[in-house]
């Protein structure tokens, strides 16, 4: 379990994380969502003890990261910025990390196979593609078989196959009862992987709820109606308080009125329906709607790169 309490971090006079509190529960994938520069990476660095908070507290299983005696067997982390010496092979990179925890070389070989880097394990990591680098980062995160995973933008740079792989992996890790906390600036990516969402903008909490609830709450339900009598039907719907938009080919997009009610209206009025489809606004739209303020703010002054806050 991950807990952030009133977490605050300033870089100079910029507030990167502002009084942020949330809990990440085990057994499910929790998405950490926000536009670029929202403070996701900074929050993760605070959780991992890489940066020191200016206020508040971040704990994992009730302890500060710095107090964990063998941290890699409790928390596995993938950071957004690369964290590998370019002159070292994947194998030796993992080995030197494993040795600090007293983990043997056999486990190193295991995680190399697990992420599919077996063929290049002895090659210098500097020559790795972005996707291979991500896989190596994930191997490092899994090294200690940790109960908590903190992954910063893990799908970055992965090909479609790699994206499928990481989705499956995250879901499986969560189903094994682990805490999986994964950041992304892509709403759609989170919609297919995360059960729970923590959304931030400008370093502040915007939403902390299930993905479903988030979509429910923030997207407008619409119904697509096709009918030869679209115009009359539109008038009828309007009288009932629905809002309609009519396309040229007799397609109505109705909001503010649900599909069963529209069907009843059509039946009562004797109108023929060719289609009656409830439709959710896209998640991406909902996300943009919610975070619009923070994005607008972030775009005006020089954007604060969140990857490397120095």
């Amino acid at each position, binding site marked *: 379990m991950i807990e952030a309490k009133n977490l605050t971090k300033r870089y100079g006079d910029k507030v990167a994380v502002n009084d942020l509190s949330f809990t990440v529960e085990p057994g499910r994938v929790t998405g950490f969502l926000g536009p670029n520069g929202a403070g996701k990476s900074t929050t993760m*660095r605070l959780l*991992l*003890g*890489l*940066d*020191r908070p200016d206020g508040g507290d971040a704990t994992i299983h009730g302890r500060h*990261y*710095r107090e*964990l*005696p063998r*941290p*890699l*067997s409790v*928390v596995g*982390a993938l*950071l957004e*910025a*690369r*964290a*590998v*010496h*370019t*002159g*070292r*092979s994947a194998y*030796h*990179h993992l*080995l*030197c*990390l494993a*040795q*600090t*925890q*007293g*983990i*043997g070389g*056999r*486990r190193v070989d*295991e995680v190399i*196979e*697990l992420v*599919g*880097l077996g063929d290049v394990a002895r090659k210098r990591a500097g020559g790795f593609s972005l996707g291979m680098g991500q*896989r190596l980062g994930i191997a*490092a995160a*899994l090294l*200690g*078989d940790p109960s908590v995973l903190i992954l910063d933008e893990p799908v970055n740079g992965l090909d479609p*196959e*790699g994206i499928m*792989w990481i989705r*499956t*992996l995250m879901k*499986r*890790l969560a189903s*094994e009862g682990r805490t999986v906390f994964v950041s992304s600036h892509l709403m759609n990516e989170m919609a297919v992987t995360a059960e729970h969402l923590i959304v931030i903008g400008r370093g502040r909490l915007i939403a902390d709820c299930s993905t479903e609830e988030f979509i429910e709450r923030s997207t407008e339900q619409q119904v697509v109606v096709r009918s030869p009598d679209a115009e009359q039907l539109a008038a009828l719907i309007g009288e009932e308080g629905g809002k309609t938009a009519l396309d040229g080919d007799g397609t109505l997009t109705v909001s503010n009125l649900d599909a069963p009610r529209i069907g009843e209206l059509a039946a009562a009025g004797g109108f023929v329906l060719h289609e009656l489809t409830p439709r959710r606004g896209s998640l991406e739209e909902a996300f943009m709607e919610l975070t619009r303020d923070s994005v607008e703010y972030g775009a005006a002054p020089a954007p604060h790169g969140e990857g490397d*806050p*120095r």
Partner: protein
Amino acid sequence: MTTVPSATTRPAAPVDRRPRFHRLMLSEWTKIRSVRSTVWSLILLVVLDLGFTALFTALTAAQWDKTDPAGRAAVAADPTGTILGSGFFLSQLTVCVLGVMVIASEYSTGMIRASLLAVPRRMSMLAAKSAVFGLLILVLGTVVSFASFFIGAPILHAKAPVSLSDPGVLRAVVGGGVYLALLGLFALAIGGIVRHTAAGITGVIGFVLVLAPLAQLLPGSFGKHVHAYLPSEAGHLIAQAHQGKNDLLTPWQGFGVFCAWTVALLVIAAILLKRRDA
């Protein structure tokens, strides 16, 4: 790269029960030996040291009759210092570069984040790194120092005979290794403070090569004192068999001064490491 193996949960990884610091040192040793550039630098250290010992002592011997009496006297007074000094002349730079790289390259590549995630107690990480690197250079430096002595002494023998059993000589030869090890830690501390490879190397070489001649330009006894207490000037005295006529400090005093510099810089590096965001 298509594998999605089913087993991520396995019985807990076999856990090494050796003491924590031992594990950290093992890890730092893996870091050093698994990067090609550090291995090459170590080889360069040996080659440069032994090569220049042979070259300079041979030149000194060949030019002996053309050398002025003062120059001859300086060599004859302390042949050990001449032999070891000619080896260190360039090889000490590889130790400086290595010392900076061992820590600064972790910052430039981002490796430091992985290291600190594995070892969030930053002092322990720095201590293990310093210990492993210091020991490595101590062993290699001592071997090189002895090899350098046994190459240089026979070459100079006809002009300025010296034997390991002469007073101060054994201490000086061992001191050569100690000097290099301490210089390595001095460079590592600066690398940890500036966290940037190029800037760190420039800084250390500035300290070692540039500051000394500059300090000599300072007037009077003030300049003389500043010069004598500079880290590398004081430090290399331990690799001399006797206190030179113009030396303000004895070998052991010089060693003490260099230790003080190194410890002070390591403490600053440690405090900064603890305070700064990684």
